């Protein structure tokens, strides 16, 4: 195995691994500060923060160092590479570069959104000097609010790392951002009238190592040190981007992509990033309801659940009609499993079906070329299938029902009178039924709606169970290629609602608390297709199902 020596510590790297000095040092637990370098973008080596001493250890044991400092980002390591990142010479260079970077940087940390998670703050604290030697006025550059619908630019905070420019050129391919002017007067800007509004634009805010590019949605909403982060998965489409949910006092403030090479890479799209607002919508269901002949008869969980159980059990003894359960592809694997169990326990003949799989156009592949057509190689895909867990729910349905029945089939059967009782587990913020099909529901004798938002369907239901959004519960989502990832409970739902898993747990009459990891072990034992999640803990990057499809970018199969 090739060995690299970082500050006298030998570390082994993979034989075919292509690492630069920054990555090799990271393996050794040493951080080499850098701004312009990002592993998903091209190397420009322009910030000059990562200068290190580099040398070679010869087979006879002698070490020959190169006379000048080299940028760690640009210098690949191989067997015998020696990296020194803590010598006097290196520290002097870092101190010098930081002084230059801070020279014209405004001292507005107290009002800057980035404060607390700022590369400039962190490295200044670690490597910089405590005061500025600049006596002259700093450069003042105009703020650019017009740079995008979702992003704003505080131009004078910019340190010209050009990560944002490279992102729009290399990942989104839309190339809206550019550098204008020269030397110290340089600014990031757009071509007049062509703002940075591509569907991946929000990523430039994350990429910005300082507070220059800010998200208008998050701007001045919260100091980042108050935020608590939980790992989760974006439910916006079947790509299943790994994300963090940042909240404070049960108010969700923002989603950020979490790097996961097994899922999406380092980024996420704006649909997902800003598409969570329904979580805090006024339309959230906040009270369980049991209705009889249009009149509300109960609004507390205990009696609603009790009468629900009785009503569902009653369907087993009916002579005509059938009981059907529809599980939305927004439900977690655990919820699908618990609901299927409950349905079969209450009525062994219960039909199980997959809820509406919302498909919006075609997969949106990035980067784009100059004509707006996808260019190869694909670096990011926004999938047309706008639900997070079709594969997971299908795996459960296939196990319990031997196949997957689509929701439209059930609607058809309701029309024909073959189904007269329906339990729907929703979750899709855009609703689970088309307006023209709403009338069909009137034919039902029993309608149970477990959902997030109030809808015309929930208004018709005999039983309404206010569930929780993905950010408020734990469970498992399985993405388009069969990657099972854990979602964690980032915040509490509105008062009156309950995590769906807990509702189903109680309906099943199980003792104890809903615990996703234990349930995963149980599911893996019972459903062979989901054996891979048997460890309970899926780790940060998730677990690939053994039956996983490896093709990327294929269109989802619409189950009709």
């Amino acid at each position, binding site marked *: 195995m090739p060995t690299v020596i970082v500050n006298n510590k030998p570390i082994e790297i993979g034989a075919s691994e292509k690492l630069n000095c920054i990555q090799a040092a990271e393996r050794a637990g040493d951080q080499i500060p850098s701004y312009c370098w990002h592993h998903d973008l091209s190397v420009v*080596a322009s910030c000059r923060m990562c200068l290190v001493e580099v040398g070679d250890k010869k087979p006879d044991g002698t070490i020959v160092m190169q006379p000048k400092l080299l940028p760690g980002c640009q210098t690949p390591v191989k067997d015998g590479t020696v990296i020194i990142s803590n010598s006097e010479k290196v520290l*002097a260079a870092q101190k*010098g570069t930081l002084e230059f970077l801070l*020279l014209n940087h405004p001292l507005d940390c107290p009002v800057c959104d980035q404060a607390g998670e700022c590369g400039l703050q962190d490295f200044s604290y670690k490597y910089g000097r405590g005061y500025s030697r600049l006596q002259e006025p700093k450069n003042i550059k105009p703020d650019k609010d017009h740079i995008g619908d979702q992003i704003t630019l505080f131009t004078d905070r910019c*340190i010209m790392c050009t990560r944002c420019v490279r992102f729009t050129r290399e990942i989104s391919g839309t190339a809206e951002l550019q550098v204008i002017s020269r*030397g110290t007067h*340089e600014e990031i800007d757009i071509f007049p009238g062509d703002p940075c509004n591509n569907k991946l634009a929000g990523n430039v805010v994350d990429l910005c190592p300082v507070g220059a590019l800010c998200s208008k949605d998050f701007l001045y909403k919260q100091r980042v040190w108050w935020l608590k982060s939980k790992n989760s998965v974006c439910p916006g489409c079947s790509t299943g981007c790994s994300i963090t949910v940042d909240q404070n006092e049960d108010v969700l403030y923002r989603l950020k992509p979490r790097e996961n090479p097994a899922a999406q890479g380092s980024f996420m799209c704006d649909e997902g990033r800003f598409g969570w607002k329904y979580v805090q919508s006024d339309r959230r269901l906040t009270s369980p309801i049991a209705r009889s002949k249009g009149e509300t008869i109960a609004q507390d969980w205990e009696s609603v659940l009790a009468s629900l159980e009785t009503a569902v059990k009653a369907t087993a003894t009916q002579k005509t009609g059938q009981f059907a359960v529809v599980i939305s592809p927004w439900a977690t694997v655990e919820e699908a499993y618990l609901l299927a169990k409950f349905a079969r326990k209450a009525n062994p003949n219960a039909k199980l079906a997959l809820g509406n799989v919302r498909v919006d156009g075609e997969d949106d592949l990035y980067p784009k070329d100059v004509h707006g057509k996808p260019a190869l190689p694909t670096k990011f895909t926004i999938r047309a299938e706008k639900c997070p867990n079709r594969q997971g729910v299908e795996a459960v349905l296939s196990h319990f029902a031997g196949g997957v029945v689509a929701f439209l089939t059930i609607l058809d059967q309701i029309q024909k009178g073959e189904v007269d009782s329906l339990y729907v587990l929703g979750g899709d913020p855009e609703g689970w039924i088309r307006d023209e099909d709403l009338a069909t529901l009137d034919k039902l004798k029993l309608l149970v709606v477990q959902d997030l938002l109030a809808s015309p369907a929930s208004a018709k239901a005999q039983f309404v169970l206010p569930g929780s959004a993905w950010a408020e519960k734990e469970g498992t989502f399985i993405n388009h290629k069969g990657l099972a990832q854990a979602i964690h409970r980032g915040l509490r739902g509105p008062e009156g609602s309950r995590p769906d898993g807990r509702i189903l747990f109680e309906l099943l009459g199980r003792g104890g608390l809903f615990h996703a990891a234990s349930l995963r072990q149980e599911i893996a034992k019972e459903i062979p297709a989901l054996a891979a999640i048997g460890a309970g803990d899926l780790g940060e990057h998730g677990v690939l199902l053994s039956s996983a499809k490896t093709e990327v970018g294929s269109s989802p199969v619409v189950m009709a």
Partner: protein
Amino acid sequence: MSTFEPTLLARIGKPDCQLLETYQRDGGYEGFKKALGMAPVDVVNLVKDSGLRGRGGAGFPTGLKWTFLPKDHSGPIYLAINADESEPATFNNRILMEMDPHQVLEGIAISCYAIKSQKAYIYLRYEYGRSYRALKKAIEECYAAGLFGKNIHGSGFDLDVVLHRGAAAYICGEETGLIESLEGKRAWPRIKPPFPAIEGLFRKPTIVNNIETMACVKQILDRGADWFKSMGVPPDPKNPRDAGSYGPKLYCISGHVNKPGCVELPMGVTVRELIDEHGGGVWKGRKAKAVVPGGISMGFLSADELDLPLDFNGPGKAGCLGLGTAAITVIDDQTSMVDVLFNCARFFAHESCGQCTPCREGTAWMHKILTRIRLGEGQLRDLDLLNEVASSMGIIPGTTICGLSDGAAWPIKNAIKKFRSEFEEYIQTGRKSVKPSEALMVAH
């Protein structure tokens, strides 16, 4: 030295010296014909044997550079000619291009043949309108005469020469900045490796050479490597890295002299000789206080260093960066070095491309400090600060992508070291180079 006959400038000033007709009457394009009869590798070896070093500033051996191209490359290979003569006080390429464009074009044709390139780009600085017109006309003449185009002289060698006008920036003279600019992008120098000889213009192997180098190549083909090696300075035996400085060189003389201009002399002439014999002496009967040996990024020679020979190693012995473009600027004893240095700093702050942090911020900071000193608000500690800023910007060997940062830092360090007492006196006596009425304008 009196026996020296100019060769590069031999035709300058003759009637109609720009025309192909007169050029061919003087034996023009014979060297190219001769080259076409040789194997390309022999042409490379001939240039290598001559000891020709690039005339653009860095002095890299031209023949050696050509051998860095990948062997048996399927092509295309490009030759990019650096005619972005933007170092202040340098105008030798301009004279060649304006007055004897065919000499340059013949050198380009020979070089293309040697490196098996079928396309040459001349990157011309925008300000050179007369050069543009002269070169354009000369290229048209060559196409009409069958000297460029397909199957030249039945040799099977094709050559296209493209004249490209830059949009005027100092950084376009850096070879990878030039390549980026030629590709239509912002002229931000590229990180190396890969060097242009491996991956240059349009990601293909590219050689970047200077205009004067091309004229030298033509003369070497005409007169042979031995002729070229017969003049100049042999390598310093104590310096194993010195490849010697051979051949004729065009020296530009400007600043406070009686007769500024461009003269051709063998390598190794002294600064004093240039000023006194070729520049007509320092003007107004004054004395020289300092001399810039080759473009302002090289630093300064003080009055007692004027007997230094101007070969590739000479200025280095006096703490300058090198020979640079061999464009000397004479500064007389009535001139304030603070003003001179301010001018340097202003130039580099304006021309820094802004890619690397140290250069982008450092050049502007030094400009601000010197502006303040000239407003009479300097302090003695500013001199140390300037020195430290310059050290963070460019520790030789440099810490930035290209050499501009080192070139911007060097004159600052150099001037403060050599003229420190003058700077101190300027600050301590509260002198101002700026009138109070101008101060507001300068400060903002």
